């Protein structure tokens, strides 16, 4: 297992390099530069800006400069926010986004797995249809719909929770976490139901029942491990979606997070910011996928064999 993990971490290095390179050239190939503005800036000003940010150098030189800076841990200055370094902006925004993502994931896994399992225990009955129906509604309700709806009902009309902010007032983390987590809860519910159904129909489950084990024990000890495999496989991409998803929630609830910077950087052509957040994102995905794979083999002993040997 250790070899497996180390191997994957080593593979991460070329992956990151490819991501950095492709993103760099991709980003510079889109029309519109960071200093294009509605009010035309004079040619002297443009020249000064381009020279300060090295935009007047040939592209491959800019790329090498960037790599050089990166090697010394410098992600460069933001193009849109002079005086802010990308590293500083990421450090400012990351805690809120990470926390939001974490709570959203808790909501998703908590509500999702429990409803999925409950539904799978009595398929095609009310116990199945109701939670799955609610799950469907969760899928139909994108964050930009659910958010304002929740705010309207619980924030403005009932005044139970604040309508914006993160950490400023008590209870202001509730609505954003729910909004972001709800969509994923729905997916997790369906995936775990599907996975549980697959597992519950397996022979070894019948054996356990025949042996006289109580249903709950069966579910927890035997069913969950196998049944959660598709959920675990989903976690990697789910995390990926969380960053862009958090953009919507952060905008709706005025949360000072990274998601907003990530999306706005693309629109602002803030090259260094795009690169910086992409690198962070890529690194995080790699780690998350690795964790998901490790978790999957922990759940399914049959995978463990191939992991220990083959990789």
């Amino acid at each position, binding site marked *: 297992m250790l070899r497996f993990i180390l*191997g994957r971490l080593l*593979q991460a290095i*070329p*992956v990151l390099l*490819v*991501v950095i390179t*492709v*993103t760099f050239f*991709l*980003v510079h190939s*889109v*029309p519109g530069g960071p200093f294009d503005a509605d009010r035309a800036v004079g040619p002297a000003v443009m020249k000064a800006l381009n020279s300060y940010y090295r935009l007047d150098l040939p592209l491959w030189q800019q790329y090498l400069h960037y790599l050089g800076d990166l090697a010394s841990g410098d992600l460069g200055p933001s193009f849109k926010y002079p005086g802010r370094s990308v590293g500083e902006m990421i450090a400012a925004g990351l805690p809120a986004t990470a926390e939001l993502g974490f709570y959203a994931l808790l909501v998703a896994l908590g509500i999702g797995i429990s409803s999925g399992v409950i539904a799978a225990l009595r*398929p*095609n009955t009310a116990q199945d249809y109701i939670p*799955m*129906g609610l799950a*469907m509604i969760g*899928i*139909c309700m*994108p964050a*930009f*719909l659910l958010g*304002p*709806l929740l705010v*309207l009902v619980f924030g403005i009309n009932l005044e139970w929770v604040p309508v914006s902010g993160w950490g400023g007032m008590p209870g202001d983390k509730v609505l954003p976490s729910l909004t972001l987590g709800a969509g994923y809860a729905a*997916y997790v519910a369906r*995936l775990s139901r*599907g*996975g549980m*159904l*697959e597992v*519950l*129909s*397996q022979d070894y489950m019948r054996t356990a029942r025949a042996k006289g084990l109580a249903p709950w024990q069966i579910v927890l000890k035997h069913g969950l491990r196998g049944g959660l*495999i*598709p959920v675990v*496989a*989903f976690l*990697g*991409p789910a995390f*990926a979606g969380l960053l862009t998803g958090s953009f919507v929630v952060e905008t709706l609830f005025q949360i000072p997070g990274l998601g907003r910077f*990530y*999306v706005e950087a*693309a*629109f602002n052509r803030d090259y260094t910011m*795009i690169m910086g*957040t*992409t690198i962070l*994102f*890529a690194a995080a*995905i*790699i780690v998350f*996928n690795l964790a998901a794979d490790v978790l*999957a083999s922990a759940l*399914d002993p*049959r*995978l463990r064999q*191939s992991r220990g040997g*083959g*990789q």
Partner: protein
Amino acid sequence: MSRGLWRDSWRRLRRNRPALLGAGLLLLMVLLALLTPWIAPFGYEQQNLVLGATPPSPSHWLGTDVLGRDMLTRILYGGRLSLAVGFIATALALIIGVTYGAVAGFIGGAVDALMMRLVDILYALPIMIFIILLMVLFGRSLLLLFLAIGAVEWMTMARIVRAQVQSLRQQEFVEAAVAMGLPPERIIARHIIPNTLGPVIIYATLTIPSVMLLEAFLSFLGLGVQPPQSSWGLLISQGVETMEEYPWLLIYPGIALATTLFALNFLGDGLRDALDPKSAKD
């Protein structure tokens, strides 16, 4: 699978009432979408500025939007686009994703590692830039929108299939096939893929709404559907803005989307139950 097993599956599916209901609704939606140019009461770009937004009435069954356009017409046309995006992008994601995931999961080892690292790379690339670039380079072709969305979704499908295939790989019937010397393509095609159909179908029915919502998100940011065309996702995102003032602008597109997704789900569940030889019927 042998013909007998297919016939069994079909019989099981026919007996599953919610699935049939789902199939029926879906068919209805598709039919409405196809027939839209003939059945829509107004032109989808026909404005009536003086009228503005009005609630449902005899002349406009589902009301009108802020520019006086008939909502029933816009929802019908929106459905055409949303369904097209949903099906085409998902089909693309399915074809690429299932094949990719099955190959990676089955072969394992270094090939699997390489394939999965490639997926990691693609995942990490900033999608917004990618889409802006597509829009600029290729004009605003809707087909490209479908392709772009499908190109994002296949990777998740691949991961799920791969996980499933890795699990199957260890099972005895597969080991037997390998021992018998059957070529990998045949094993994958005839033994592995049919047995991954369960989660694949479930995930496909999850992908279609995800695709439709991704399209809504893109349109919301101005990167997708162009006016005066519309899609359900775009209608909903516009309806949210006037949620309190003109709720019908949100409710009816929402119902249209929800109905379709419910239908897809019941159908998907039914298909899954029908195709699984060990379906839980005890």
